[in-house]
């Protein structure tokens, strides 16, 4: 039985998930086939990461934990630094899309910054090609009303990932430094449902939050609404660099793992429909920055190569050869491994422009006992 056939009969899928996949197959069979083939790709020893595309870092928020803060113009201005590196344009995105398709990759996430403030958002979706790739957008929800949600669906966006950092309104607004943002998220939830956009809410898990009533209430809300809650571990990068107290410990991660049995909640470490990647660096996700650099995860500011100079296939191979990011591991490299966190902070602190180019951060002869 091929994986495509297997998926059709896969009893492990929830009824809702099976319906979503059936709908996608009717509308976009090419993408459905690619998604269904991921299991075969992994079984053959190949990888199929999601591509996060950071074309622009423009954002209307200034969040306490923003991982992209050091890429933003406002931070470069503070550092009196000019980013004169070439930037990815629509041709570069089209070429990335072509190479990704050739490798069987099937999923793009448009992120930033805040994607919905990008003037060329629709053009980016078209350059990715929503008939060849499953397109997802991140958003803080501020501009996601019903009109915008229907528009996103009409241009080929399939899914929205919206941030909600506390189920307590004041806490979310405070963490996001944006009064009113909580209500905008709730409006966005309804807008996605009306427009038929798949939705997951994402939230940041800081140390101790897994044990709180607020977190449990949020899990319950998402489960009741049938909306998945994606939990991202807080990482000591970007504007959270000076908040080492945010970093979770194993107990937090294990409490979350137990809650997965009860609620519609998951992290990037969660087994998903037969796929068990653990830390998803390279194997499950890559980030393409506005300067074309490819990093192994949204929170690691060290590159494996520039897609405008090096074929995507070779960049992925570098990542898989690297002893930190290539092989499988069950914990979050940048969120839990103190040695790597230290290495990352030491290396990135020497650079005003991130990510750190290949050879200066990650390198060909990397080792696990390396000291920055």
């Amino acid at each position, binding site marked *: 039985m091929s994986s495509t056939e297997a998926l059709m009969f*896969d009893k*492990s899928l929830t009824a809702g998930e099976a319906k979503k996949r059936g709908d996608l197959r009717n509308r976009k069979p090419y993408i459905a086939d690619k998604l269904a083939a991921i299991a075969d790709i*992994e*079984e*053959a*020893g190949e990888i199929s990461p999601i591509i996060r595309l950071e074309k622009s870092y423009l954002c209307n928020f200034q969040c306490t934990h923003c991982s992209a803060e050091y890429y933003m113009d406002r931070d470069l201005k503070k550092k009196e630094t000019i980013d004169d590196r070439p930037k990815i344009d629509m041709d570069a995105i089209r070429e990335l899309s072509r190479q990704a398709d050739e490798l069987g990759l099937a999923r793009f996430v448009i992120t930033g910054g805040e994607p919905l403030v990008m003037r060329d958002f629709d053009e980016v979706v078209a350059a990715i090609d929503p008939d060849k790739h499953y397109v997802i957008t991140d958003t803080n929800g501020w501009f996601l009303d019903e009109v915008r949600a229907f528009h996103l669906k009409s241009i080929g966006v399939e899914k929205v990932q919206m941030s909600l950092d506390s189920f307590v309104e004041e806490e979310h607004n405070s963490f996001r430094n944006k009064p009113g943002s909580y209500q905008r998220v709730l409006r966005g939830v309804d807008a996605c449902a009306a427009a038929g956009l798949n939705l997951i809410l994402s939230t940041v898990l800081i140390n101790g939050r897994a044990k709180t009533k607020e977190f449990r209430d949020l899990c319950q809300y998402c489960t009741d609404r049938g909306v998945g809650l994606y939990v991202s571990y807080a990482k000591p990068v970007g504007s959270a660099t000076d908040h080492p107290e945010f970093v979770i410990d*194993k*107990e937090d*991660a*294990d409490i979350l*793992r*137990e809650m997965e*049995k009860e609620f519609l909640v998951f992290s990037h470490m969660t*087994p998903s429909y*037969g796929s*068990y990647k*653990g830390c998803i660096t390279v194997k499950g996700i890559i980030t393409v920055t506005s300067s074309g650099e490819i990093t192994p995860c949204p929170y690691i500011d060290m590159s494996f190569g520039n897609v405008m100079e090096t074929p995507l296939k070779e960049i992925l191979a570098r990542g*898989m050869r690297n*002893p930190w990011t*290539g*092989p*499988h*591991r*069950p*914990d979050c490299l940048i969120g839990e*491994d103190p*040695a790597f966190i230290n290495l990352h902070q030491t290396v990135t602190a020497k650079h005003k422009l991130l990510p750190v180019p290949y050879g200066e951060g990650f390198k060909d002869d990397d080792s*696990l*006992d390396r000291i920055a």
Partner: protein
Amino acid sequence: MSNAGVVFDAKGRLEPDDALKNPAHLKSRNYFKFPDLEFDPKGCYKRISSVFDISLSEDDFVSETKDILSQIGVSLGLDDTQKIVAVPFYTPKMGEGDLGEILENTLIPAVGKSYKNLLPDYEFKNEFPHPLKGHLESISGLGHDRLETAVKNSPVVGVCLFVLREYSVHAAREQIEILGEDFGLAGAIDLSSVFVSQPNLLFHKDEYPPLIWMSGCQTSWDHANFHYEAYGYNLMFNRRVHYDQVAEYWAHGVTCFKSI
């Protein structure tokens, strides 16, 4: 049994032989750790006997497994102060049959029962969604083949050591050949028996424990193998691609056994 020349690091990891052609880490930072468990044949006997009809007395099980451990110590030049992770186990007579079927129908359910007995709040899950029949066989000459033959005719007692850490699957196979024929590379039968005996082998609240490959067996996929792995406080059996790489997360068992 004599293996003069093998070297263990301070944490009880066997350092890879210079002659290995496949990847293994030369040194370990010991990031993934087994929980601190004593060699406890009495406790293991109690857990085994709640799952299998065990054909020898507690005293005999204790004495046989201590004897095997002692012989291993002499052979590998271990002194009493050297801390190694070692688990005594018992496998009942299995009779003839496909190894995948034996694993799926007998051994995996036994692991599940023992896990539930010891850790009733948590779960053991077989996450591999397909039948195992025809997907698994012992590799000739690496020891698990001898074990598979032995349990067709009689029960065995044995001890499994977790000294091969941070070796690729292929490097572990090379290393076991260097250790000699008294040692076998653990596979489906002995690893499952170990988890019946010591279901909390990977239950670690403070640190991440390693994944244990069934590297003494080969599967019907080139780059993948079966394994046991913790997921939080839970244990799972699954199959995973290993890319022919080494990872600091990976461990393999080394087994000595005796038919009874």
